[in-house]
């Protein structure tokens, strides 16, 4: 089944009684986990819709990442818990107090040996994925760290902040534990002098499958449109500013293994998914190269999107939504969307129907951080 | 004697002049002929009706005599010795400030002091009332009284200040009666090309019904009903919650309408909406239609559905009801029959001249705060009504009284006299605007500029110079040259927006402003024609002292003061002379004698 972003449609929806802030498929693609405005990690078996809860956090779970047989969940108090998914119901492998204050983002390295966390305290920290032992601390950000992601080569890491008026993306060299570059993301600043508040800043960051391009997302200027910036990873220079027509913030951006960009965000009543094809090399078969800013597709979601995760098969995404009264949403949902024209709901497990080559799949799997 | 006021024709002439619309001389002559005819008719009409004349009813005693009688009654029994009458110098400065808002220029002062005709004071009063400066001053006074320096929350959602001041100035230039002025202010919805600017009263308050209710009561009826919003006022037995909401019902259907295309801000009004209220003290409820205090409820007429709106409310549309309660307010309030309407204005005009009202504070008339001279207040109200609310006429009578013309020097051996006896002239603060303009006048800068503007007009328009020179429009434009400077100085001395002027309360930041800002240094630069320039050129220090005192204090110096000047300048090296003169001038400009109206 060809991936056609413009045909993206909702295939399943799991509802919840509180807004959901983040989500992750497990690596088998059978389950989706989510955290939201309560203390539990929620789990849905996709095929059956069966819902279970994992209770170990003391406050809202706002970031998740999964890798083979494992799931990491992080909360507002700075606690990160690693769960084993190997046998039946998840079991806690380790628990750490990773940061002072909210952990905004978690990521896992391509070789699954390291977990990276970024938090309110402005630090990026690396932990052993097996044991939770601290491995390194990367300091330099001057504000809350909102996105961490490993480079596909496994030797570098990118993290992003919301520093007032001059948010940055930092590239770190893991071996020397040093900062390699600081990218100027001021195009994502939405500073408002009247309130001395930075409403913008970088919300998420992602590497392209070949590692040559870095994307970061947010909104450009106060009350402006959701925006993605692209940087050349070698030169550190900004190469593209993709401004959507959606007046909102993109909370999440990632590259599909096929090379196109996905970004999602939400505003008062609505949520949208935007797809761009930013590089010539990664042409969609049969699709032309997109002009500047021209998206491949933009899709209306059932509600504001706080986060999304790509299914291991690259064909579906899970979006974490807030639902309910538009002014005071008091519910949440996970929306499973299919990135193709398929209507067959039962094929979420299969990988063979998509035209993704094996290398890309591995990269995609590693990239799902 | 009715002055030749040419308001509408002023404007026409002005447009001709500014717009260069002289087509040909016969065209002009034809139009000018019309204007002259209108002017003569006007003269005739006002002369016949005697508007501006006190002697309407010729067997009545002049009001100013009656005022003095009332004030002086009881002094003998109380052994109260009043102050003597003010000297010419005291009177001169005081009446200039009270009727034109600026101290006299030095040459005017000298002329008056040297004039020995017995009727000079009465003549001066008439001249000042007739001057364009009177209109400019009263416009400023009324602006402050009615708006209390408020700024709309969205600053631009208002009538521009210049348009509002033009409206007021022209109203005073034509001596518009007070009731007519109030009618225009309260009736307008902002659309009328002539009276539209009066909407500033509503718009400065964001058309908020609570603010409007309180201020309509305070400023037009002399009662501050704000505490009666939630319950009958516990302090003042006459202030009832029903009174508050009776006024409220006139304005509760109003809202602000901003036209995005024309950028104008106007009043919109609904055709429905009733007013109910509950006392937080007693829990008792009430419902009311529009009703003025002491008056009857005004029912809404029964209108057919189609007639309820002239312009129905819709998004982006200014609704205009078939029956407007706002129009009712404009018509009902400014009438003799409305309780407090006449009392309020005569009390305020009295306060403007005499420094405090017969009722103090001006907006708190109630049973436990009676007037100091109740019969006098009633008399003033009655007379003002019979004069058809002629403000100039009343001010004239006030200025002619002995009461107004007392000295501020206490009688010998008097320690203090209670201010509500009006037996000695009070020491009052110059208003912020009076202070700013008087600084400009004292420094000579105002004269320099007016002279230049005058000469320019003479050379550009010799034919109509005489007429144009006296129009309020020409004068306003000439004085507005200093508008920004005056506003920035006045701002330092003004009270916070939304508050009445209140008693003299000098603050340290004002003193610092006079001492260390560049206001005085700039004013005292020795540019050609200014005071400092003139003083520098004076050879004798006696002459210098005289010019200095006439310019600053509007009087001649006494011997000691001349000696002080002489000593100060004695043996001063040439290069320090300007500085020494400036020291004298700035020291005196910062004195209490300059700061106060006395």
């Amino acid at each position, binding site marked *: 089944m060809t991936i056609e972003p413009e045909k993206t449609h909702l295939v399943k929806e799991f509802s919840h009684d509180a807004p959901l802030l983040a989500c992750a498929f497990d690596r088998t693609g059978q389950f989706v986990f989510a955290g939201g405005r309560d203390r539990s990690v929620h789990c849905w078996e996709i095929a059956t819709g069966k819902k279970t809860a994992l209770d170990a956090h003391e406050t809202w779970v706002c970031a998740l990442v999964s890798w083979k047989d494992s799931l990491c969940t992080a909360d*507002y108090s700075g606690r990160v818990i690693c769960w084993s998914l190997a046998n039946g119901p998840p079991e806690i492998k380790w628990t750490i107090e990773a940061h002072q204050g909210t952990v905004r983002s978690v990521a896992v390295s391509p070789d699954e040996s390291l977990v990276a966390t970024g938090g309110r305290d402005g630090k990026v920290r690396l932990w052993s994925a097996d044991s939770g032992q601290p491995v390194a601390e990367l300091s330099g950000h001057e504000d809350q760290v909102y996105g961490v992601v490993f480079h596909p080569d496994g030797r570098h890491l990118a993290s992003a902040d919301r520093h007032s008026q001059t948010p940055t993306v930092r590239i770190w060299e893991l071996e020397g534990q040093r900062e390699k570059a600081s990218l100027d993301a001021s195009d994502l600043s939405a500073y408002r002098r009247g309130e001395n508040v930075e409403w913008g800043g970088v919300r998420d960051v992602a590497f392209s499958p070949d590692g040559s391009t870095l994307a970061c997302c947010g909104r450009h200027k106060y009350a402006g449109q959701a925006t993605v910036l692209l940087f050349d990873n070698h030169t550190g220079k900004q190469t593209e500013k993709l401004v959507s027509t959606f007046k909102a913030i993109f909370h999440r951006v990632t590259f599909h293994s096929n090379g196109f960009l996905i970004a999602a965000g939400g505003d008062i009543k609505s949520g949208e998914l935007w797809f761009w094809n930013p590089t010539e090399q990664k042409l969609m078969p049969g699709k032309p190269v997109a002009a500047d800013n021209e998206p491949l597709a933009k899709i209306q979601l059932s509600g504001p999107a706080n986060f999304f995760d790509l299914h291991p098969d690259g064909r579906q995404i899970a979006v974490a939504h807030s639902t309910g009264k538009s002014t005071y949403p008091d519910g949440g949902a996970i929306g499973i969307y299919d990135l193709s024209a398929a209507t067959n709901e039962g094929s979420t497990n299969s990988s063979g129907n998509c035209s993704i080559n094996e290398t890309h799949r591995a990269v995609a799997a590693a990239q799902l951080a | 004697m009715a002055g030749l006021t040419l308001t509408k024709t002023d404007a026409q002439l002005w447009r001709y002049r500014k717009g260069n619309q002289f087509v040909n001389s016969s065209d002009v002559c034809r139009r000018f002929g019309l204007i002259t005819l209108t002017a003569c008719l006007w003269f005739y009409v006002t002369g016949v009706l005697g508007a501006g004349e006190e002697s309407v009813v010729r067997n009545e005693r002049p009001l100013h005599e009656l005022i003095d009688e009332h004030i002086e009654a009881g002094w003998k029994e109380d052994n109260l010795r009043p102050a003597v009458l003010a000297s010419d110098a005291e009177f001169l400065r005081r009446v200039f400030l009270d009727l034109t808002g600026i101290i006299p220029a030095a040459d005017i002062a000298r002329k008056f002091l040297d004039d020995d005709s017995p009727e000079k004071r009465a003549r001066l009063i008439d001249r000042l009332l007739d001057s364009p400066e009177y209109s400019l001053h009263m416009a400023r006074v009324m602006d402050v009284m009615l708006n209390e320096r408020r700024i709309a929350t969205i600053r631009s959602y208002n009538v521009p200040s210049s348009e509002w001041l033009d409206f007021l100035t022209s109203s005073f230039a034509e001596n518009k009666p007070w009731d007519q002025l109030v009618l225009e202010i309260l009736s307008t919805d902002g659309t009328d090309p002539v009276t539209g600017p009066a909407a500033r009263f509503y718009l400065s308050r964001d058309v908020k019904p609570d603010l409007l209710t309180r201020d309509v009561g305070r400023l037009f009826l002399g009662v501050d009903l704000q505490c009666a919003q939630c319950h009958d006022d516990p302090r003042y037995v006459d202030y009832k919650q029903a009174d508050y909401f009776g006024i409220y019902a006139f304005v509760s259907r109003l809202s602000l309408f901003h036209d995005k295309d024309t950028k104008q801000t106007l009043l919109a009004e609904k055709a429905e909406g009733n007013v109910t209220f509950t006392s937080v003290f007693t829990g008792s409820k009430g419902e009311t239609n529009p009703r003025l205090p002491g008056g009857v409820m005004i029912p809404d007429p029964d209108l057919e559905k189609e007639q309820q709106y002239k312009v129905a409310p819709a998004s982006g549309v200014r609704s205009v009801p078939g029956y407007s309660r706002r129009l009712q307010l404009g018509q009902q309030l400014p009438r003799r029959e409305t309780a407090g309407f006449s009392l309020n204005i005569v009390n305020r005009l009295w306060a403007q001249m005499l420094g405090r009202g017969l009722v103090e504070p001006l907006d708190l008339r109630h049973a436990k705060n009676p007037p100091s001279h109740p019969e006098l207040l009633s008399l003033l109200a009655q007379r003002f009504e019979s004069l058809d609310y002629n403000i100039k006429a009343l001010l004239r009578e006030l200025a002619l009284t002995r009461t107004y013309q007392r000295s501020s020097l206490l009688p010998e051996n008097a320690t203090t006299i209670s201010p509500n006896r009006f037996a000695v002239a009070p020491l009052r603060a110059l208003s912020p605007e009076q202070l700013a303009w008087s600084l400009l006048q004292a420094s000579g800068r105002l004269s320099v500029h007016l002279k230049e503007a005058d000469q320019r007009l003479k050379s550009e328009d010799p034919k109509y110079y005489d007429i144009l020179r006296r129009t309020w429009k020409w004068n306003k434009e000439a004085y507005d040259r200093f508008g920004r400077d005056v506003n920035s100085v006045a701002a330092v001395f003004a009270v*916070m927006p939304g508050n009445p002027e209140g008693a003299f309360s000098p603050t340290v930041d004002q003193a610092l402003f006079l001492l260390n800002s560049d206001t005085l240094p700039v004013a005292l630069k020795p540019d050609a024609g200014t005071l400092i320039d003139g003083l520098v050129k004076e050879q004798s220090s006696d002459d210098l002292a005289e010019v200095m005192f006439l310019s600053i204090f509007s009087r001649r110096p006494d011997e000691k003061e001349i000696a002080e000047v002489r000593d100060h300048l004695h043996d001063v090296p040439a290069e320090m002379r300007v500085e020494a003169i400036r020291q004298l001038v700035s020291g005196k400009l910062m004195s209490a004698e300059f700061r106060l109206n006395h």
Partner: protein
Amino acid sequence: MKRLTACNQSEHVVSRRSILAGTIGALGAGVLGQPLLSEELHARRKRLLILFQSGGASQFETWDPKPGTKTGGPFRAISTSLPGVHIGELLPHTAGIMHRLAVVRSVNTRIADHFLGHYALQSGRRVPGYPVLGSAAARLLEQPGDVLPGYVSLRRDGPKAFTDIGDAGFLGPKYEAVKIINGQPPANLVRPAAISESTESARDAIRRRSDERFLSGRSARSIQAYGNSFDQAAVLMKRRDIFDLNKEPAADRERYGDHDFGRHCLLARRLLESGINCVKVVHHDWDAHEENFHWHQQRCSEFDGTFATLINDFADRGLLEDTLIVVTGEMGRTPRINNRAGRDHWGNAWSMAMAGCGIEQGVVYGKTNEDGTSVVDGEVDLGHLFHTWLTALGLDPTGHYDIGGGENQIGTPAASAIKELLA
């Protein structure tokens, strides 16, 4: 009709001589470098410090946490130096000094508007025209011989600052706050270069001579008031270093925090120690309609460190027992979280805190229900708070201002002080 009453307890009656020694009298003898305030005066004068959280801080994220509820937000509650009492985890330093504070959790003013809220919380009334707390206290605390302004307020300029309405009302311009905006000292405190010292003294002498002559035979009050304002100006020019934060040790500037609130609080300490009776510091931008949790993390971390430092400092320097410290915003924030992860305006069940002069230490007054949507115990309104503050300062809120034949009670007659909060 009662007179305006100021402190009239015996220990507050200071000899005129000692006042002069601390202020005008000392002028002649090398004022620069004089100690900020003599010890005797230190001990006797009551002072007021208002820390105003403009925009409205969320009580859920500060004084009255409700973790684990639908309304409580993500932050946990932490224990404090008061056993059994918890506050939000974003205020760890404040938690350590809870034993010095009195916190009220049961405020129900029903005001959800910035403008009215600023005015009402500071004046104790909804009806306009009354003086705000700083102006009222300046009037009621002033003593003969006071030359410095009675009330100074520190804030920034900028659009949102205009919601801070409320002034001295009918007390008049003398009791208006002297405004320090963006940390800049009041204007015109320095003699300009163009005016030499000899000119300054010459024209001052000329002014005085003129006033002396004018005074003779006339009512003195206005003339003297005007002359006094120049005397005060001279004092303030000589004492202008009280506005200079650089005169405070660098270590203190660091402890208070490198942000506006920190700097302004340190300047407030300096002003209070210099003889200013009432100071207000506005901490801006609490109005978190969007991303409430992110912004409270920022704002609380600014507030927390500075506030705890200030309280401890005041205690160490002997200022705490004579200075009433009031911490409030114009309202609280909604229990419900809106679609932009923010909280909106809320006046029905919120919190504030106070400490210092006349206030009982280590008190939590009032309760809200489980999800913070209403007050269940100890409900208080504007008037109660205003009465409490005045009483704590040793003033009588049932005294009157006399205006136009009517008695205007200083605190609204409908309320009285909250006894449990008073020491």
